[in-house]
């Protein structure tokens, strides 16, 4: 729909048009397109075989496994939370709803470093619960649980944020009809609500997943950077980069970039499906 109306323009100054398009493209080229291409350039600078070998390094494989494990825990958890929160917020009227929405949004405006810091303060060696967990032999910070918690905090709002406006817009009549005809709560959700929110839900899940797999700041704080054990893919890219293993670093970065591009393609497709209009 965008740009359709631009076709019925009056006489435009052709120079302004050319200059503005050129400025836009050059700006994007300098800060976005060239940097992205340079990563691919370096990753493949010594040929495909070296690139593939770099990805097969044991530490890198461990990092890929850790990232996938983290996302496999975080994304479903935040999806269930998002659906539950959206159901309560969109289908019922209660006092304090606005505060709840604001609190759900909070992680969006908090620095990722803070998101990691809070868990170190809770579970670190000098943290509130740190000594107790240590006595039980459970390691939270500098281990998988800490990484999962920090990632969960950072990606917390994504699904809920997508679903709340969609479900609010849909109203309650369909569900109320289903319930008054004798359908149970779960049946109503799976047969009535879910089909009408599935694209929005998928959209939120994809964004949540991209952020979960790519999170750097929060995870960097809680991970401790133990190679092969607690480095996720973004951290592994940093470790290799700091060691001047450029092919290795850029190979990992290129995988993450692939993830971003895939996310973007899926997102664009979903938008074309009419799942939702552009984020306002």
């Amino acid at each position: 729909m965008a740009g359709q109306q631009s076709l019925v323009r009056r006489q435009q100054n052709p120079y302004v048009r050319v200059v503005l398009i050129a400025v836009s493209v050059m700006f994007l080229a300098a800060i976005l397109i060239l940097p992205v291409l340079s990563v691919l350039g370096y990753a493949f600078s010594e040929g495909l075989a070296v690139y593939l070998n770099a990805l097969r390094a044991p530490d890198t494989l461990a990092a890929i496994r850790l990232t996938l494990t983290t996302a496999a825990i975080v994304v479903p958890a935040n999806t269930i939370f998002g659906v539950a929160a959206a159901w309560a917020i969109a289908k019922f009227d209660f006092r304090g709803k606005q505060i709840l929405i604001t609190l759900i949004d909070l992680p969006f405006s908090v620095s990722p470093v803070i998101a990691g810091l809070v868990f170190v303060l809770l579970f670190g060696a000098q943290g509130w619960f740190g000594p107790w967990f240590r006595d039980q032999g459970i390691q939270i910070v500098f281990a998988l649980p800490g990484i999962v918690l920090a990632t969960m905090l950072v990606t917390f709002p994504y699904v809920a944020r997508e679903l709340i406006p969609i479900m609010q817009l849909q109203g309650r009549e369909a569900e109320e009809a289903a319930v008054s005809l004798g359908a149970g709560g779960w049946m109503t959700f799976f047969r009535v609500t879910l089909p009408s929110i599935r694209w929005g839900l998928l959209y939120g899940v994809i964004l949540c997943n991209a952020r979960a797999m790519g999170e750097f700041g929060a995870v960097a704080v809680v991970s401790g950077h133990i190679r092969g054990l607690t480095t996720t893919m973004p951290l592994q890219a940093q470790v290799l980069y700091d060691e001047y293993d450029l092919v290795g670093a850029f190979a990992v970065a290129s995988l993450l970039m692939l993830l971003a591009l895939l996310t973007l393609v899926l997102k664009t497709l979903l938008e074309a499906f009419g799942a939702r209009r552009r984020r306002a």
Partner: protein
Amino acid sequence: MATARGWVSPSVLPGFGLTLGFAGLFLTIIVLIPMAALIMRAGSLPLDEFWRIATEPRALASYRLTFGASFLAACVNAVFGFIIAWTLVRYEFPGRRLVDAIIDLPFALPTAVSGIALATVFTPNGWLGMHLESVGIQVAYTWVGVTVALTLIGLPFVVRSVQPALEEVDVSLEEAAESLGASRWMVFRRVILPTVLPALATGFTLALARAIGEYGSVIFIAGNLPMRTEITPLLIVIKLEQYDYLGAAALGLVMLCVSFVMLLSINAVNGWRIRRMVGRR
């Protein structure tokens, strides 16, 4: 509003207790308790000690860089983001849809990747860095580099805020103004800009808020020299690595307060935008 439970309106739909309870519990465990821990940890410091940590020269220098570069980046984005949104809405050109799709890339790209990518291009022997170096501009390892990184991650916020507003501008108003003899510039200033300004302000605030907390895309290009190119989130990380939990918590609380202020500003700007939209109808 007269109900059995008092604070919730009656409804035939089931699941209110279950969903609200689960969402509330999860929110408490993942967000509220951790945030409370930060506030209480920093609050356990005597006030003068907190003040000393929060205002030591190295911390002050990091605020100057973080807020200065974030503000500058948001301004750059307001200008270039507006131009890009304008180009995408008003002009048809080959590759327009591709450019439109690429705008979201900084949202999707892991910050470490954008950081490494920018550092590669802007170091003195990088693709752009070598040309800039030859004209005497050093980007990597200076505040300029920090600003470039913050510009990259803030750009989509401005473009995606301004784009729908520009699409809404009533073309017949522009035509009317032009037929009454207004110049293109005057039409822009008097008709287009006032309509789009609230959206631009929203995009600006969102970009600013995001930039202030940013870590991953900055640290690779910044060089991280204490007092010079060290952002506040990095200073927190350094304090944690030295097991200075209280120092980290104090700076963390400062950042958290700034985030709250930004959140309030975003809501205020949004409210203004919505009131303007309603007022026009």
